[in-house]
């Protein structure tokens, strides 16, 4: 069995790449898959804190690439799932410490260690992004339903096309159904029409995400969270299951609907 390598990227920073990476990885692990997460954001690592593994780091990605440790030594085992591992980014180096061909080589080694390798890409369109997508079999682009995130997603999608990779799939994160309903936020259809790529999931804005990041416990572990449910669904779709989209329609009571119409 050889792993599938998925890279999560976005162009714009702060749209939820690391949150998406962590949650997809944990949801896959929940389904009994062997998963390795790789933080490719050298110099600005964060996947370790989102997963709650920051105190266990000894070696990092650059140590592996520069031969200071074996691959297995840099793979930190998760507290909750034996088959979930993290390879953290180096914090004191920069993106130029690693090259796209280093990443291809590392990707090939990791294929033997897991069913899934999930790579968290840095923001931007430079070296760090190129490193992150180099070994990818599939690329997920995270965006928010706002003008700047969609614009940057379009740039990234164009660059992925130019690299002759498989067409990327889209995650629309931080959707506010009630804002969409009152016409103050792009809806999923608008975003898909503009970007013209396939959708793999819509994740609603959810306070549970902040709380779960505070404590280093990804939101998919929170049974009741809508965002958690959305990320679980994305992971199931990656596994090939047909899962309908969440119904995010804002549940208005009859009177607010009426007052909106007659305002």
């Amino acid at each position: 069995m050889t792993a599938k390598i998925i890279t999560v990227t976005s162009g714009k920073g702060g749209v939820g790449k690391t949150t998406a990476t962590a949650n997809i990885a944990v949801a896959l692990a929940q389904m009994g898959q062997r998963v390795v997460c790789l933080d490719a954001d050298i110099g600005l690592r964060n996947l370790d804190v989102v997963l709650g593994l920051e105190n266990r780091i000894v070696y990092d990605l650059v140590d592996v690439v520069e031969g200071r440790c074996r691959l297995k030594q840099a793979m930190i085992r998760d507290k909750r799932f034996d088959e979930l591992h993290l390879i953290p980014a180096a914090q004191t180096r920069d993106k130029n410490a690693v090259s796209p061909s280093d990443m291809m080589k590392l990707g090939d080694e990791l294929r033997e260690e897991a069913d899934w390798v999930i790579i968290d890409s840095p923001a931007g369109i430079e070296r760090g992004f190129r490193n992150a997508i180099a070994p990818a079999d599939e690329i997920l682009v995270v965006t928010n339903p706002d003008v700047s995130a969609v614009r940057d997603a379009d740039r990234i999608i164009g660059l992925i096309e130019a690299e002759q990779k498989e067409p990327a799939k889209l995650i629309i994160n931080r959707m506010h159904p009630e804002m969409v309903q009152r016409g103050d936020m792009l809806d999923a259809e608008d975003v898909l029409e503009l970007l013209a790529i396939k959708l793999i999931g819509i994740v609603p804005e959810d306070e549970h995400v902040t709380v779960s990041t505070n404590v280093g416990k990804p939101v998919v572990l929170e049974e009741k969270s809508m965002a958690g449910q959305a990320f679980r669904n994305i992971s199931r779709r990656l596994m090939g299951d047909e899962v309908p989209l969440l119904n995010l329609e804002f549940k208005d009571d009859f009177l607010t609907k009426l007052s909106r119409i007659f305002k």
Partner: protein
Amino acid sequence: MSDWLKKFTNQPNSANEAKERLKLVLIHDRTDINPEVMEKLKDDLLKTISHHIAIEPESVTISMLHEGREQRLVADIPLKHYDRSKVG
């Protein structure tokens, strides 16, 4: 929001404005063609075509369309109308 509801409520709809602005921005981002380049292209096209056939320069439109992620430059160039009764 459905169109009839929009008309009914008469609310400003910032999502529509976002979509329209993004459409234009993405065309320019994808093709690296800004409005200035488009104008120059139009002038050059008009000059070249006018060498060969009579056209109505003021009714020519050149626009960028996109189908999926493909961009397409579309020129609509009406020919000058001849009064056939005066010919021959």
